[in-house]
């Protein structure tokens, strides 16, 4: 086991150890990479029933005050975000580089401000950037006293609404404040697996109790970061710091759908001029799905070759247990981004046949009502 003594611990650390997890370092936290059943079994279980993920390492905050101060930093149209709705959005630097991807939602009613969830590895930087830009017009209240759980899979809704009947009204990307076993929770119908499911913010001191309650349902198994990664990769979802970073814009990352139409019309998001020009002219490189033809996965960092020339790099790669074969994502020259385009991946010094594949590798099964 990795030495995790000096790392931050989530409120569920003791539960992970009790469940026999192998703990590893991730973004400064001791996190479960897998439980004894292993990544393959955990992955398949999530697609067949329901998986419980501890994502308490992620940053949670409430933003109050002038929402325009937050909107100026991201790509969403917050005036269109109604109470009970959630949006996926991007935090951009002045050059249009992606500082983070985040969820912003309005679970607390019309006047309760916004609930924001950002990535673990970037939360310090994100929150500092927001506070500086808010300059007294808006306030960021970090919710470090809350844990975050994700319950994902086709059985997630039956399990969760059995405990929280009111949550049955939620469809994909809706949210609210609910009561679970007497505890006030913020829940959204969303996730990072491509499956139906919920993300559930709970008070840190109640996290163990709620996690155990969810795990007491035979349909629910604990799932580690290993399967979380293979699930999101099959679902074609980006991992920050790998599939996108400050050197990539939303146009290159194929995330232009996350830029609200009115923000494009107003040309008022960070890096807007540059990004809108990339959208109009086509970026030099583009993120694509890649399907290797042979059995060996191409991992992050593998060079992508086309007709003898290096045309890009793999940014995520592994085996897709539900897809039943290796899967990858990476950046290629934009003229090679069309599904079916033949590529070669350099794995251990050998060029291996692959092709551009449409994303996702496994169909999304979000609940849209």
């Amino acid at each position, binding site marked *: 086991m990795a030495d995790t003594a000096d790392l931050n611990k989530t409120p569920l650390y003791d539960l992970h150890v009790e469940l026999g997890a192998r703990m590893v370092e991730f973004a400064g936290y001791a996190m479960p*990479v*897998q439980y004894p059943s*292993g*990544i*393959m*079994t955990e*992955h398949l279980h999530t697609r067949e029933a329901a998986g419980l993920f501890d994502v308490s390492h992620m940053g949670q905050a409430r933003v109050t005050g002038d929402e325009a101060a937050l909107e100026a930093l991201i790509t969403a149209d917050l005036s269109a975000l109604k109470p009970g709705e959630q949006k996926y959005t991007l935090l951009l630097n002045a050059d249009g580089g992606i500082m983070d991807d985040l969820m912003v939602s309005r679970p607390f009613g019309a006047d309760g401000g916004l609930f924001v969830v950002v990535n673990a590895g970037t939360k310090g930087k994100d929150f500092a950037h927001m506070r500086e830009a808010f300059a007294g017009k808006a306030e960021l209240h970090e919710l470090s006293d809350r844990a975050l759980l994700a319950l994902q899979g086709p059985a997630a809704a039956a399990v969760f609404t059995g405990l929280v009947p009111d949550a049955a009204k939620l469809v994909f990307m809706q949210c609210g404040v609910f009561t679970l076993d007497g505890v006030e929770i913020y829940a959204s119908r969303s996730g990072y697996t491509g499956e139906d499911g919920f993300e559930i913010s709970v008070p840190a001191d109640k996290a163990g109790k709620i996690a155990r309650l969810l795990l007491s349902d035979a349909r629910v198994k604990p799932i580690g970061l*290993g399967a979380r990664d*293979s699930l999101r990769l099959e679902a074609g979802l980006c991992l920050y710091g790998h599939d996108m970073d400050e050197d990539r814009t939303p146009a290159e990352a194929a995330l232009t759908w996350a830029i609200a139409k009115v923000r494009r019309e107003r040309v008022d998001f960070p890096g807007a001029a540059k990004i809108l020009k990339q959208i109009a002219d086509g970026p030099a490189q583009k993120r694509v799905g890649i399907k290797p033809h042979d*059995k*060996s*996965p191409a*991992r992050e960092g593998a060079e992508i070759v086309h007709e003898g020339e290096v045309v890009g790099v793999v940014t995520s790669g*592994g*085996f897709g*247990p539900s897809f039943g074969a*290796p899967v990858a994502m990476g950046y290629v020259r934009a003229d090679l981004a069309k599904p079916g385009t033949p590529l070669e991946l350099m794995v*251990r010094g050998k060029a291996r046949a692959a092709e551009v594949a449409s994303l996702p590798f496994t169909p999304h099964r979000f609940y849209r009502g």
Partner: protein
Amino acid sequence: MTTRFTKDHEWVRLEGDIAIIGITQYATEQLGDVISVELPDVGKSFKKGDEIAVVDSVKTAAEVYAPLSGEVIEINDGIEDAPQLVNDEPLAGGWFAKLKIADKGELDGLMDEAAYAKHIA
């Protein structure tokens, strides 16, 4: 018939001048679910310590080094078709290759079961 172990978690079992090689239970536990194995070509010779095979698991790729010098005379096609065998039976059905070895003396540098158990403890 003795089985010997390397510090890199390969095992080798000698039958006459034929060495059967594979990876240990501990190695498979560290790797997790094996999803593909690249085995060497029959007829190719390796020196002790050369990379002879590669194992890919859901988590990572790992090189397998030749525990002894020799020429590959047979590979286990079974684990190319059903890599899960490496997890299920690392010391039996999950063997990797058979080598015709030249120098049994190379075996002396390897660990016996008790020493290996201590190595991974």
